[in-house]
């Protein structure tokens, strides 16, 4: 990636080594105008602390909730987010894009 990121992957390693439950979320596919490129990371701990981003802030809340489940179960999950008004009760991307996010536990 060309743009500089704060060091999310280093944080994931440090958090895990400090004994926290940690999950890593990665943007694996995008369609249309997606706010963050493929490969972007969000790191989440079992207390709901997070660093980084997978969207412009639209879906991070939902990813964090799912990530806490993944930390508990250890089963990776793939999440999909689309436009906000598609299903009113779901969070979505107001930019009109669609993204797929892979969430895995750091073992």
């Amino acid at each position, binding site marked *: *990636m*060309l*743009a*500089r990121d704060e060091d999310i*992957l*280093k944080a*994931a*390693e440090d958090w*895990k*080594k400090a004994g926290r439950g940690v999950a*890593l979320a*990665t943007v*694996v*596919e995008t369609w249309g105008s997606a706010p963050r*490129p*493929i*490969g972007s990371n969000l790191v989440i701990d079992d207390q709901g602390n997070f660093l980084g981003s997978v969207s412009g802030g639209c879906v991070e809340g939902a990813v964090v909730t799912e990530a806490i489940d993944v930390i508990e179960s250890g089963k*990776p999950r793939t999440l999909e987010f689309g436009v906000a008004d598609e299903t009113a009760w779901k969070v979505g991307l107001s930019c009109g894009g669609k993204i797929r996010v*892979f969430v*895995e*536990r*750091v*073992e």
Partner: protein
Amino acid sequence: MRLDILNALNEERAARRSVVVVTNQDSGTQRLVKAADIGADPLKAVLEKHIRSAKSGIEETPEGKVFLTVHVPSPKLVITGAVHISQTLAPMGQLLGYDVTIVDPRTAFASIERFPDVKVIADWPDVALPAIGIDHYTAFVALTHDPKIDDPGLDVALKSDCFYIGALGSRKTHARRVERLKAERGFSDNDIGRIHSPIGLDIGSVSPAEIAVSIIGEITQALRQEPT
């Protein structure tokens, strides 16, 4: 992701080496491929393509559907000569994501007024360049027209594996430079063949800013296009 993979990944990134994490979408298995090991990897061609473009993504392979997370160090642009061309080349480099440093021992040139937002080191290249670290993800450009300053910079660059070396000067100037680099510093024709001179893409540039465009274009080509 396994902690040992994450640990190795962060070590490679800290050492400014390219690395790819290959995650199988069906089985969930993960492995780390270091830049040095790509040549021997069954997914060599796909991995090389992704490293070159610095893009992560999904690929269909004989191993199944895999997600490649690509980590390539951010590139550096090192320029000798706090000259007119550098005044536009440096900010262009920054816009393209390069970590830009200008080296010029002449303090009158290397002033903050002339380069408000760029790292400028008022020292000789043989001192400054090793400290900056000229590595594979570095482009080196010699722009002073002064052999006393450009030659020691070229010396350091030619001994490194940086991805681009360019030197300003006419064909005549370059011919004299080649003679000096051979006679005084012992470089071979092969070494000297790495130097782009005349510098920049041939787009008829006239002004210093246009020359900067041709240089940054040539650097981009060296970074992204497969050598022919």
